[in-house]
């Protein structure tokens, strides 16, 4: 990935390597852990930072092959400004974030997401188990 030195004086470093562990929390792949890392060439780097892609097409980092409610390119999870963000990519059935009171909020645009917080892409629930930037 590219290092943007211009930003380093603003108080944070763009990390050299980012990795994230994402677990399926429902559906036929419930319990499966997917480990992705920028060093292994997973994800994409762009203006928004490093991002992993969720969708029904097989070139996504998280391939939702069994979820007919998922769009082809459904959502992205990216790391920027020292935190994780969840972004809906104009999906048909929406991306949702679980709230404390057991309700869920539909994501429009990008919203910050904490480690351990559940989110839903199509019908499938996920959770960020761990994320490391160094």
């Amino acid at each position, binding site marked *: 990935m590219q290092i943007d030195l211009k930003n380093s004086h603003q108080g944070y470093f763009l990390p050299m390597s980012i990795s994230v562990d994402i677990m399926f929390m429902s*559906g036929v*792949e*419930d319990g499966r852990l997917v480990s992705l890392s920028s060093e292994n060439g997973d994800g994409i780097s762009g203006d928004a930072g490093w991002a992993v892609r969720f969708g029904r097409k097989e070139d996504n980092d998280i391939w939702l*092959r069994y979820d007919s409610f998922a769009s082809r390119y459904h959502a992205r999870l990216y790391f920027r400004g020292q935190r994780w963000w969840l972004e809906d990519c104009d999906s048909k059935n929406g991306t949702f974030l679980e709230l404390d009171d057991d309700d869920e909020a539909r994501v429009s645009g990008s919203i910050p997401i904490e480690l351990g917080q559940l989110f839903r892409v199509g019908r499938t629930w996920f959770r960020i188990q761990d994320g490391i930037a160094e």
Partner: protein
Amino acid sequence: MSDVTLKDIQINARQESARMQHYFIGVEHLFIGMLKARESLAASIVERHGLTTDYVIDEIRRRTGKGTTQRMFAGAPYTPRADMVMGIANDLMLEHGLSEITEQELLEAILEENDSIPIRALHSLGITTDEARNVLLNPTPSTLPTPTSPTVQIEFGQQYSPDTPLRDEHYALLRRLFYGNGRIRIEAQLQGGYTSALILVVTAFGSDNLENAPVVVKIDKSDTILDEAQRYEQIIKESLPPLTARLEDFPVTIESSDLAGLKYTFVTDDSGMVRDMRAAAQDQSADAFSQWIYADLYQRFGKTWWMQRRPYRFQVWTEYDWLLPPLVTLEYGATDDPTALVIKDPVRRSRIKKADYGASIAIEEFSIHRINADRGSIVLSSGRGTEAAKRAYKIEVRGMNLEKDAHFRGELVERISGRLWKTRDEILQMAIAELAPDFDLTTPVIPGLVHGAYLPNPLILYDDLLDRYVNGSLSRIHGDLHLGNILVGHHQAAFLIDFAQARTGHTLFDWACLEVSLLDAYVMPAYGQDWDDAREAVHEINGSAGAAFTTIPDELKPIFSIRNIVRENLEQAGNWSEYFIALAFCALRASTWETMSAAGRRGAFYLSASAMGEVITTSRPSGQDTISSDGTEVDLPRNR
């Protein structure tokens, strides 16, 4: 030890997976497989918390949703999590020196893994993993007291004079609720609301044969009771004044019927008899009663409820459509008719109004609100937005084979179709026609009190009002505030019961409901049964709004008190249309209630008409402020 074998659980799990069109086996299917097995440990966990297995199964199903008919893999594979759980169960089996996994090991494994969908469902229902584990350690319940006698003897007090006698299932439920007491005495049956609930005041006797303080027992359909207990825990408990009726213990269900019961402890000294507000209204002066509504009911509960309001601009249908009969009733029938009228979000009511009997209609992306297994029908609703909006646009689908298709409350239905059987307008027209109106129900206006005066016809105007915007406020509300749900204890303290409808909603909704209840129980008896009596009562309610308290008739004083409370809670001072919208829809609903007196229904219909009249006149664009802000009528002549 559990007698349930792994094989039984797996068979049930596969059936559940197929019915939900999942075609894989996850921990959720295994857990439901256990809940469905007879006398399972899993069932005892949920039952010890006063929940039924069906209730928990629906909660799990809501979390997974139903799959599609399209199968994407062969066989019925185990999910990675289910595989992991089976691995843990296998280790436990070896530790226990067994040759086969039983329910005990599987359940222990699910609790140890502690991250699956059924675990999340249990947590949201208030059952922690530790509590569940305790049931495994102590399969015999230790929480129940040792019964002092094998059965609970049931007696009746002198005040008890029921409308209908108790049924066997009521007796069975009462014995379960008072398990451990040798004897109970049913003191009174309180006037229920407009629901099917049975509300009793019961005194139990301890083993020493001493009287305990009386409690209020509510018996209703088990889904309703279990929802009420959940709402009490999540919404109500923290917001009650210290001395008030509280929910005691978990709800209780019985296997032999779909009824459940719960107990409200009644904090009063034991000389105080329990009365509801309907009875209390009769034995105090109108002045005292009116003062009581303001000071004891409103101010006592208001601090944590209505007074904590925040601005809320809403479209009327989002808060009030759910009060109305189903938008359409359909006769179920699968159809691929490309010309079918599709009802989906956002709902266009005008197109539905034009549909003819037998027209082909498809509903898309609605949620299941209720399942009437005995009638083979389901009720769908919008399922989106605020709590009231989720219940909006009810659609009943009849003639379904509920044995064949698995449906559950909260299920999101992608598409269901049928033929139009009845519209909302027809149901409303029929309900008012039962009251033998002395006017035409199909014209835009109906006669007012005097010759030549008219009010809008609620059956015509309601539909336009649903699309209006209201600048109102939002607060915690009771959701079903009527005279039967307000009990009066020692020192005239107000006790609210029945929290099945409690939610965050339009602040003025509760007061509109209570006004309609007062109209039925307090106002109409003083006027009479007929349509002319209804017109006169409503006319005088409006006329008294600007008057001095001492000059208005006694039977209208409590309503005057309600309007004072409303005045303090209007979002925009003096803008009464916020209240009249609420009143118009609450009164329209009451006018269709079969359980309300004919006099009350006629009064409610005219109250609705008059409230709608206020809404359209106060928002007339040309209007200089000629309308008095206290809601005095202007279109009707003052003298007669």
